[in-house]
């Protein structure tokens, strides 16, 4: 009894209520976190379970046969690879250089603000709109026709804003004092960027680029009208199987292939549909893991 009276730090009634709220908030946030993880796990488990009968090395390396009811997904897989490759060759240098300009050279005036606003808005444009834009701009106006190049350009336009934004953020995270130190020794802006800013921001920049690989590989809408095709005969082996599409060829792609065999084609074994989906998810996870691993590796090397 006496200890209660003498306790100068006894909790008040209000604190008791506060404790309950604290517990409640903790529980709710935890529950939401689990709610987030469950769908991801469920999708992966479900996909792999359904796709299991089809999954094999042959499924990856064989071309679709007999109206896609047999064989594998080599054509679409290599098509997606080239789509991503060409679109990155276009988007990565453009986006990185634009990001460098916007963060390192551009003065804060209305032109710069307008460009930044445009970049942000471009990132919010739905992919189907990009697809229609690509059809109008690259396929018709520039006369590319539907082909790998037109589709890659469309995907590049779609991925550009995020590459620009992540480049800008990565550059902005390099402390200003490094730049000031360089300038005060007589460095030009480019010398500063080349010797100090880029080496210390490359991990962030590349992370942004790699994450766009997953997006470029996954989207169907931008390539729908600009170059993807339902089926094309490509070689089963040799060099022609490795590089089946030229820049001016139409091509198969995983996302479009999945759309076709799921909705447009009859008699495709269910495991093929889920197998294609599982390969796509696997690609995305692999690319994301690569980007995370890469970032950890580069972070560990830089210290200030």
């Amino acid at each position, binding site marked *: 009894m006496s200890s209660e009276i003498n306790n100068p730090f006894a909790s008040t009634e209000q604190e008791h209520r506060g404790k309950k709220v604290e517990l409640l908030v903790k529980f709710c946030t935890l529950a939401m976190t689990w709610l987030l993880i469950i769908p991801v796990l469920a999708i992966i488990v479900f996909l792999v379970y359904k796709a299991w009968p089809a999954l094999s090395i042959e499924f990856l390396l064989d071309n679709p046969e007999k109206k896609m009811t047999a064989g594998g997904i080599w054509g679409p897989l290599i098509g997606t690879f080239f789509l991503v490759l060409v679109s990155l060759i276009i988007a990565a240098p453009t986006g990185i250089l634009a990001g460098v300009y916007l963060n390192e050279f551009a003065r804060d005036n209305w032109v710069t603000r307008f460009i930044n606003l445009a970049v942000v808005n471009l990132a919010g444009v739905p992919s189907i709109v990009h697809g229609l834009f690509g059809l109008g701009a690259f396929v018709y106006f520039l006369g590319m026709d539907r082909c790998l190049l037109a589709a890659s350009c469309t995907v590049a336009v779609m991925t550009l804003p995020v590459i620009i934004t992540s480049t800008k953020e990565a550059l902005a995270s390099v402390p200003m004092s490094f730049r000031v130190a360089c300038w005060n020794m007589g460095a030009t802006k480019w010398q500063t960027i080349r*010797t100090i800013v880029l080496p210390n921001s490359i991990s962030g920049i590349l992370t942004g680029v790699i994450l766009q690989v997953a997006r470029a590989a996954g989207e169907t809408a931008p390539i729908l009208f600009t170059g993807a095709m339902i089926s094309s005969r490509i070689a089963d082996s040799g060099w022609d199987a490795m590089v089946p599409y030229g820049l001016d060829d139409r091509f198969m792609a995983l996302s479009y292939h999945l759309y076709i065999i799921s909705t447009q084609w009859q008699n495709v074994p269910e495991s093929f549909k889920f197998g294609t989906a599982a390969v796509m998810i696997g690609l995305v996870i692999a690319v994301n893991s690569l980007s995370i691993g890469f970032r950890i590796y580069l972070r560990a090397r830089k210290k200030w």
Partner: protein
Amino acid sequence: MSTIATESSTTQYPPVEISLADELSIQTRGLNLWYGDFQALMDVSVNIKKGIITGLIGPSGCGKTTLLRCFNRINERYGNVRTTGDIEILDKNIYDSDVSVRQLRRSVGMVFQRPNPLPISIFDNVLFGMGLHDAHKSLSRSERADVVEMALREVDLWNTVKDRLKARATTLTLEQQQKLCIARLLPLKPDIILMDEPCSALDAEGIEKVENLIESLRDEYTVVIVTHNMAQARRATDECIFMLLGEIIEHSKTSEMFLNPQHEKTEMYIQGRYG
């Protein structure tokens, strides 16, 4: 040099007595500077002598750092800055069109409040400036090592770091980092070293060591040092310039300024009545 007398006679406040024997390192005449609409420097005319340590003192926001940044035109990198008036460094107007800012900054180095070594090795930090000016390409490996050793010896850092020159500069203590920041200027053979509160991030021991280092730079280099610390201004400088709201109030020998300030505002500031 004949212009000095007429120039100093135009200032509002008692002119600094300059014997014509003293060589001048930095002269400004009617220097005004605006950040956007805000005027940060007002009609600043100042003569800074060669080979001594000059302190810039005054309350926060009085334009000390701004004035310092004028001397190597680094202000221009901070955007939206406009200046009028003349700045002559080593008798050359640095706003002349035939002045290369890169060569100017090579000759007028700066040290900052927060030590800012680059995130590369100690060795590379010292050589970094030379690299910017392609000055180390002609040097052999051993000559480069000599340059690094000489610079680090000059700042009394060589014995501490000679065994770990390849270590990252950012792993050094703050005091060592600040010394390194001074050392990396030296291979560029500067004439003037500007210091913007070089000791304010350091502890007492570090302050003492860096002050001793600054002391040792006298004669060979002209040092201009911004400081908030009155005791430091008194200890470490030969002359002091007191600024207030963008204007030069008083410029005199440090001993005179602290013993017998000419201006009431100077007196009140150095006594610590405002800051």
